[in-house]
Structures are given as C-alpha cells and as structure tokens.
C-alpha cells in the first residue's frame, strides 16, 4: 500500500515570498496557476490551502508588489493575471535574504558541529 505523499503546511509568512518567487519564474499567472505552480515546483510537498492565496494576493496588490489585469485564458475564461512590479522584485530579494539568514541561523542551531 503506497503511502500518500507527505504534505506540509507552508511556514507562516513565507506564502508571499513563494508567490513572488513563482511570478518571477512564470511571467503573468492567474491565481489558480500560482497555486498549482507552488504545489508542483515543491514536488507536491508544500500544501497551500488554495483559498488562502487570495487574501495574500490582495495584500500584495495593495503593497504594490504585483499588479493584476483581467484578460482571457486560453480556454477563453475571464481571469485576473498577476505580474511582478519592480517593487515586487526588490521585495522578493529582501525576503530571500531574510529567509536565507533565518534558515542559516536555524541550521546552525540544529547542527552545531558545522560551526
């Protein structure tokens, strides 16, 4: 009996970073595509409760990190496509730097012999 793939909740505060990162890779995307992309690129390990994407997107729209534009999907459905702004790019760099710092610090604690 195959064990179902292990899925983890996203650590709090990283969702926005993940969205920004996804948008850097994939040009313009709509909400569903972003959720799908996060799921797939993390090899199915990270689980986004898909709805929680939307409050985050709203927050980022306000911060001016992303802009949204309504257009048509290939199947001719109306969808809002998000695109990174230059402020969003800078924010992504900041977040990654911060994440690296935190991650290094955590790994230092967990594996002191590396120090």
């Amino acid at each position, binding site marked *: 009996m195959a064990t179902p793939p292990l899925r983890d909740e996203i650590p709090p505060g990283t969702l926005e970073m993940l969205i920004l990162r996804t948008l850097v890779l994939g040009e313009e995307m*709509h909400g569903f595509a972003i959720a799908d992309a996060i799921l797939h690129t993390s090899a199915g390990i990270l689980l986004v409760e*898909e*709805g929680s994407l939307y409050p985050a997107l709203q927050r980022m*729209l306000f911060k001016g990190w992303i802009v949204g534009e309504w257009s048509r999907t290939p199947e001719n*459905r*109306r969808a809002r496509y998000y695109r990174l702004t230059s402020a969003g790019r800078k924010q992504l760099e900041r977040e990654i730097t911060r994440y690296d710092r935190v991650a290094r610090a955590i790994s230092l604690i967990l594996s002191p012999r590396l120090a």
Partner: protein
Amino acid sequence: MTLGELWRRVTLLIRRERLREDLDAEIQLHQELRAEANRRSGADARTASAASRRAFGNPNLIREASQDVWGGRWLDVLQQDLGYAFRTLRRSPGFTLATILTLALAIGSTTAVFSVVNGVLLRPLPFAGQDRLTMLAERSRQGGLRPPSYPTFLDWQREARAFEGLAYVRGGGQRVTGSEGVQNIVVSVVSPGFFSVLGERPLLGRLFTPDEERSGAQVAVLSYALWQRRFGGDPQILERALSLSSGAYRVVGVLPHDVAYPPWTDEQLYTPLATVTATDHALVQRGFHADCRIIGRLNPGISIEQATADLSDVARREAAAYPEFNADWTSAELIPLRDEVLGDTKAQLLMLLAAVALVLLVACVNIANLSLARGHARVRELAIRSALGAGRGRVARQLFTESALLAGGGGLLGVTAAWWAVVWLRRTGLAVVPRLDTVAVDVRVLAVAIGVVGLTAVATGLLPALWAGRSDLTESLKQRSEAATSGSPRPRLRAVLVTSEIALAVILVAGAGLLVRSLRELRAVSPGFDSAGLTTFYVSPPPGREPAALRALYFRILDAARALPGVTGVALTNFTPLSGGGLPSPVQVAGRAPDPEHDPQVWFMTVSPGYCRTMRIPVREGRDFTEADLAGGTAVLVNEAFARSYLAGSDPIGRSLTLHKAVQGRDDFGESMPATIIGIVGDVHHFDLASPAEPQVYVPFTRNVWGHITLVVRMAVSQPGFPRTLTRTVQRVDPEIPVMLSGGQAAAGLVDVIGSLASRRLDAWVLGSFGAAALLLAAIGVYGLIGYSVARRRQEIGVRVALGARRSDVLRLVVGDGMRLAVVGILVGLLGALAVTRLLAGLLYGVGASDPATFVADAALLGLVALTACYLPARRAAGIDPVTALRYE
C-alpha cells in the same frame, strides 16, 4: 505606508463593489479550474467539485480575510447601520420630522447668532496689544466729554506719565479727482507716532518715516477698505499720485485689515499732520474740539484708573491755566478703544446670545423628550435584537447612528438656514451693528455648529441607548407594551422636561413682548416734524471756500430746488434731525446766572427761513423767520426744551441771548453773536426718539455760514425718482459738489424716522422669532407628551367609557393632566422672567422691565398654546370606542 499604498487604499473606499466582484470571480474561476483538473485525473463530477471545495477552504472566510486586508470593515458596518437607521426613521416620519426641524431651528439660530457675536465681539480688534489702547477725552464737571484741542493734546503728551505714547488724529472730507470723477473721501491727519501707538504695520509699502511725521510731506497711507473699494485692491497702488483737495499726495503704504481707526469710516486716507500745521488754523485754537480723537497706549502694568488719575492732574492744571477754554473740563476720561469701536452693541449681542442659549435649551429638552417617548415604544424591538444576539455595544451604536443621522440632517438644514440668516442680517443690520460687514459663517462658527450638532447627537442618542442598556431582557419581552412603562419613573421625568420647556418659553416670550411693546411706544413718539414727503441733499462744497461764496452758492441751490415741479417747500439746515449730526455751543441768557452743574447743552442750528414750514415744526409762540431776517438783525428761534431749561417762569419773546460763532477752524470761531428770541418752536428729537428732545437754538444760516449744509425739500406727493432729479439740479448749480459721500452713500436721501429705530426693530424681530420658536417647541413638547399618554392609556379610557364616563369627562381628564403641567411651567417661567427681563432694561422704552400687561398676556398666550396642544389628543381620547379599545390588547 507608502504614498502609492495610501492612494490604493483611498480609491478602494470608492471601488469596494468592484473589488468584491473581482474577488468572487477569481474564487469561482479557481474552483472551476480545480474541479476540471480533478476530473481530468479521473474523478467523477461530484467528487471532483467536492474535492476542489475541500482544497480551497471556506470561501466565505477567504472573502472576509481578503476584505480585512482592504481594511475599512467598519465601513460595511456603518453602511448597514445607516441603512437600518434610514429605514427606522422613515417608519416614524412624525418623530423624524419633528426632531430634524427642532434641531434645524436650534442649530440654525445658534449658528447665525454666534457668527454675529463671533464677528463683532469675540474677534479682537486687529491692533496689537489692544488691551492697552484707549481713547482719551476731557471730562467736564457736568459729565460731558470732548476730545481735547490740539494745543491741549500737546500739553497732555508732554506731561502725562502713564502712557507709552499719545497720538492725535483729525478727520475731514476731501475730494479725490480721478478718472472716475470727483469722489468724497475721509482724510485723517495724524500726529507723529499715530501708527506706532496703534501698533500698525503696513500690508504694502511703508508707513510714514520719522522725518515725514516731523516735517511733513505730501505722502499718504490708505486704509485697507479704501484700497479695496476705491482702488480695487490695485497692487500697483504704491507711488501713485492722488489729487486731493489739499494737493497731490503720493501713496506710500496700505494698512492690513478691515477695521480703520478712528471708527468714523473704514475707508480712510492718512497723511502726516505736520504737512498741514502751517495752514490749519484749527491746530492752534484751544477752542477747537471737532472731528478729532486722542489715543494713547498705556505703559505696561498701568491700569486705566491709574492713567485716568495721572491725566486728570494734567487736566486740572490746564483748566487753571486756560479758564477761558477749559474752566469746566477738570478731569480726563479713558475709554478702552475696543468699547469705543464696538459701542453699546455689547448688551444687545449678549441678549441675543442668552436668547439663543434658551432656544437651544428648549430644543434639547424637546428632543430628549421625543427620544424618551420613542425609547419607550422601542423597548420590545431592542429586547428582541438583544435576544437575537446583538451585543449591548452594537445596539447602542445602532441607536447612536440614528441620532447622529438626525443631528446631521438637522445640522445641515440649520447651517444652511444660518447662512441665509447671516446674509439677511448683513443686508438689514449693517448700519446698526459695527463690523457687521465682516461677519460670515466662518470656520470658527462652523466648528461651534458642529460641536452643537455633536453634543445633541450624543445627548439624544445616549438617553435611549443608556436606557436600552438598562432594560431587562426577559421582563421587556414578557410585558406587553402598554404595561412596560407602568411604575417606571420616566413619565415623571418627561413631565418635568415639558414643564421646564414651558417655563423657558414664557421667559423668551416675555422678553420679546417687552421689546415689541417698547417699539410700539417708540413708534407712537412724534419726532417733532413730519418726515413724509421730505427729500434731503447733503451739500458739501470743496473746503476752503470763503463764507460769502458759500452763502451765494446756498442761495442759488435754494432757488434751483424751489423751481422744481411738485415742490411745496425748500429750506436749509446745518444738521437734519435723526441724521446723527449736531453741534453744541455755549449760550448765555441775559439776566440769568449760568448753572454749570445743571445747564444742559444747547444745540446750534443754522436754518433758512422756510425751515419750520418745510419740516412742519410748529411755531408755539411769537413768529417764524422771514426773508428779512437773513439780511441782518439778531433774530433767533428757540425750542420748547430751551425755554423750559433756560427761561422758566418768564416771557421768552424778546429776551436777549449771547451765542458764539460755531463754525470750527475759522478765524471767527467763538466770536460772540448777540441774539433776540423772536419765537418758540416745537421740540424735535434730534438724535434719538427714545431720549428727550434737547434744547436748540435756531439761527439764520447767513449769520454763521456753515461749510456744508443740507437742503430739505418737501413734495406735495413724493415721487420715487425725485432724489435723482434733486441730485441733477444741484450738480447743474455746482458740478464740484459730490453726489456720492464716503462709504458709497448717495448725497440725496430721505429723513428716515423709522430707520432710526432699525436697531430696536432688529432686536424685537430677533427676540420675537426666538420667542415664537420656543413657543412652537413647547407646543410640540406638550402635544407629544399628552398624545403619548393618551395612546398609552387607551385601554384605561376605554374602560372608563364602558363604565359610563361621558365624552366631556374624558376631555376634562386628559386636558386637566396637561394643563396642570402647563400652569406649573407658566408660574415658574413668570418668576424666571421677572429675574431675567431686568437685564433688558437698557433696551426698553416706555415699559417697565416687569410690565404687568406684558406678563399677563405672556401667561395667557402660553396657556392658550398649551390648551390647544392638550385639546387635540384629548379629542382623540374622547373619541375612543370602548369595544375596539378593549379588544385591542
């Protein structure tokens, strides 16, 4: 928060609907796409969409979370509250309308009156350190006041110790000749340091240099109003040359504010006094006191009393040194500049403020009353809301939203009304209240209005809210509406409120009644002449003309006016009655010792022979002037007041008097003139209908030719276009006579007897409308209370009728309840009125402050209003059908 974010948040408030739709569309799309993906991976349609929903989470929570990101959830709640408040208020239109109108009335009158008080009283004069500024006058043993002559001023300036500085200013009419023709303006010549005493700084250019002040120069400073109105606020005004009667002057500066000192007009042109000292005789005469002011700035820390004592010492020395001029003028009086500029309107304005406070109080009482009544009716509604889970705060907020809505509506209506009222006041009261032209509904006034609105909102919203908080849920739901109130103390509270409302209305109506009666008494006072059909023209030829030339000019004007069609009489006089002008002059009666302590001032009138006939002033004894009296001789007329004061107990005709030439600034000023009384004429109220007629002596105008004179013309039938005809006629005789006076007033006009009562009429009007408002509010209060109690006692009354009570019994029962309150209210109000109307004493004429007739009428009026307000609901009660009333519950 960045600027961009702020902007996005602000636009959000407007685009909320759009955002919500966008979000919904996105969520729906997401779920559809997920379902399709699930289907593609083999799930059947139902499991696919269920799985997609599971993966998505709770869309409602997501929506709310997103909206939380937008912020402004309060906006939604507010929207909900407002919508609900609108619906509730619409359901009880009577209450809503009554409350909004009450509020509008109260806020409107508060705002209007406060804007006047603010503009006139509260706003300080624009002079720096105005508390230390005073106007200085000589005071006689009899209590008379006059500005010192210029030589006396110089002595004061040298000897007084209490002042940082003293300055002298004298005003006079001059013509400016410009592209717009000849205009009359007031030119004030000022002694060195005048502007620094006032603490003035220039808005444009500069003030006079010390050198210009000392040695004189042809330079001029304009008051702000003059610059604005005559020169259109021209920024290029500096260095412009003005052609005045006394020569060409160069404009060097403009003053910064709308108030000009001395307060004879806001449009003034200032020049250094030193420029005219060589040519102005008035400046060396110790007997010259006209058209001038002395102002002083007190040393810091010196009180007015100390300064008065200091200056009075100087005045006493002057009186001893120059008995010829100053014998009686043995002390000094200091009048704060503020009081001089604002005059005695302070009492009037404070009365207005008190009245408006009363109206506001009545209005608040009324609204509190209405809200209480409504609070009762809503007990069950509020209880149900609590039962359904509304928190106490939520219910209170709902109630508060309602009252805020009411207060807002009333406030908006009220401020609009106030705006119109101020416009109206400025049109009608301009001549009555100083600085009124600067009154406006400004920021400060609006702040007060908003404060009043806020307070009423809190007061009227809080009452029912507090009450809703107190009410016991289960009890309220269990009880039937009718029983919910029995045993509660609230009806008593409402009765007290209504009683005090009636009492306040009684006070206001008493005040208004007294003012209206004063006005009626004053209207009944005969001014001593007949103003109907009179037209006047103020003839002010250029200064510097010789008396002989003036005399010839005046004769030519008389002849020209006499020749006009429809004219039945023409005459000249130096001062028309009720125009505010006049000149007192000493008179000695042969064979009578003067009594400086008691002799009243005598007003020096120069007239042409037709004057009494034209004015219809009766000749009581002796004869009127004839043309022959103009040529020479000593004939004069005196009025009855003069005969009473100076000639009591003797035959006045033929008595000899000594008069003194009274045209100021001429070489012959003060020269004695022998006179013989040839007749006695009726008294004329020269200054004010409310004060007794002053003693007057009439002299043929040729004996002391005045520098300006007023032409009086009587028409058989007054024609509306006649002032224009008269103006053209005078202009044909001498085009140099200006037809526009300073302040933009036409030289031609009417003798306005009623106009002299304008200030009192305004008072009566304003207090009258406040009284009417209070009356109306009290009536609403009584009606509301009684109507409510009838509705509450419907069943009880039904039982009474069923048990055999007659219609008249029911009527008596209900009316009796209301009238008991009314009688108490009226009695309390009368007591209050007795105390308060005493403050009005200064504004009354011919009635006492506790005039019994007024008070009785007041009580009767309030009784009648209360009776009507009780009768209407009582009649409804009497019509109650016992069967329906009993089945109703």
